[in-house]
């Protein structure tokens, strides 16, 4: 079992569990909902790469999510680019944005880092609001889903689901690998004791920057896919509450756990979806859940589980 992607046994088991679930899920869960969960799970996992493993809290990740969503939507709708290219364009945008923001922000720490990323994200929000191509608060609507490799019709929810699931799994494994790579080891050392890492000759900023760009790119991937699935890119995607959502998912799932963000995304998105029917009490119920979460299940869903099993998850 140890052979699976170099994972320890319980990680491998869980990953296989997730794979099996992804295969059977569409038979009893609405596929569009599943896709939404996957997009946000990817968003949260990529965000967690930064928060959980570099110790940097970015409050501006909506920038990459929404930026990529806009570019993908625009290139697919207006320029008529095929699915793959549109997604790549979104990711490239996110990577470029990540590089710029990273260079500016990476020297700051803690709350200051969070605030500078928030500030830059708010500026981008302003640009998105003013720019013509983003369609203001109506967003870019009716984005064509197109065909994968020119043959597979993605307008069929199930085929699109299959593609999204594959993308998600691939990205998740990549994140897993990043965390458990020589690079990930250095990141860990930097998070633990930065002056010491520096005195050993590591240029801490370079490592953090690379991690930041990787995270931004993967978040961009999530945003791009989201815009295709919902055929929509809108201001919601670049608003600061979207960054907040990533934080929530990570916390609810379990900070610093590799599987936590997935669970967190599933919970938060389900909440958003099913509580929507609750009408006026939605936000109150949401609030109560957060409060209970912090007071009673501080480690998050997966974190608590990990504690019960005495394993890192």
């Amino acid at each position: 079992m140890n052979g699976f992607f170099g994972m320890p046994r319980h990680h491998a088991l869980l990953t296989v569990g997730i794979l099996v679930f992804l295969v059977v899920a569409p038979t009893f869960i609405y596929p569009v909902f599943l896709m939404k969960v996957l997009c946000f799970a990817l968003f949260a996992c990529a965000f967690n790469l930064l928060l959980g493993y570099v110790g940097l809290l970015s409050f501006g990740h909506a920038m990459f999510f929404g930026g990529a969503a806009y570019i993908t939507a625009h290139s697919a709708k207006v320029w008529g680019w095929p699915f793959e290219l549109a997604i790549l364009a979104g990711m490239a945008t996110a990577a470029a944005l990540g590089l710029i923001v990273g260079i500016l922000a990476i020297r700051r720490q803690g709350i200051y880092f969070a605030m500078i990323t928030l500030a830059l994200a708010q500026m981008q929000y302003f640009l998105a609001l003013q720019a013509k191509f983003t369609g203001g608060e109506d967003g870019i609507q009716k984005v064509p889903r197109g065909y994968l490799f020119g043959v597979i019709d993605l307008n069929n929810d199930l085929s699109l689901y299959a593609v999204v699931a594959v993308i998600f799994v691939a990205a998740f494994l990549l994140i897993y690998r990043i965390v458990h790579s020589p690079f990930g080891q250095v990141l860990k050392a930097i998070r633990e004791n930065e002056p010491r890492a520096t005195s050993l000759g590591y240029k801490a900023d370079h490592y953090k920057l690379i991690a930041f760009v990787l995270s931004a790119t993967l978040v961009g991937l999530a945003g791009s896919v989201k815009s295709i699935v919902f055929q929509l890119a809108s201001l919601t995607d670049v608003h600061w509450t979207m960054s907040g959502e990533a934080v929530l998912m990570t916390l609810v799932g379990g900070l610093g756990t590799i599987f936590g963000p997935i669970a967190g995304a599933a919970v938060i998105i389900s909440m958003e979806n099913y509580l929507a029917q609750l009408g006026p009490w939605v936000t109150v119920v949401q609030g109560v859940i957060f409060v209970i979460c912090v007071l009673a299940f501080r480690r998050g869903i997966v974190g608590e589980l990990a504690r019960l099993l005495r394993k890192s998850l």
Partner: protein
Amino acid sequence: MADFILETEGLTKEFRGFVAVNGVSLKIRRGAIHALIGPNGAGKTTCFNLLTKFLDPTRGTIRYNGRDISGAKPADIARMGLVRSFQISAVFPHLSVLENVRVALQRRRGSSFDFWRSERTLDAFNDRARELIDWVGLADFVDTTAVEMPYGRKRALEIATTLALEPELMLLDEPTAGMGHEDVGRIAALIKRVAAGRTVLMVEHNLSVVSDLSNAITVLARGEILAEGDYATVSKNPEVIQAYMGAGHG
């Protein structure tokens, strides 16, 4: 002419009008164990910070191996073989002892940017890491998380990690501070052992360690050099006795 690995010329550091280090010209002979001592607030730690570029000097130059490094960055300094330890213990607390040492080894071998590779590629460093760990007497602790070890052992680990970089010049800031007797002895022995083939500059208040280990001493007081020489010379200097050692020694 003597072979100096590190020379400073008129090194000065001011903090908002307060002069912490004032025109210090140090010469560290290659292969020596050089001790920097002096009363509290004399500027020893500040000197260290200047040498490793954690602080920028207000004035003065630093030459390492004949090269002017006054403009270099901390990480670059480390890459040139000038590695420091900290006054407060500096390990990676939630990594195991083995991982702590591997982090240092990994830096020397490159590959530390490989985010697509499995961390098992790092196992290649295990042998060398175990060797170093063994050497500082931590063989029984290889898989212990650093934070769980007693203080003295952490300092030993720190030295192992530093050695992994195969430094030419090691700077140790109060390596035995806060240590039990048992550990003081062990660390002193360790320093003696690792000093073979390299140069050590250390700040230390424990005079028995200083007298035991060092073959050159610089005494700082109020940011300036008060005296220089070997232990016997320095400890007889009345100014040093008055400012630092007190009546009990000498």
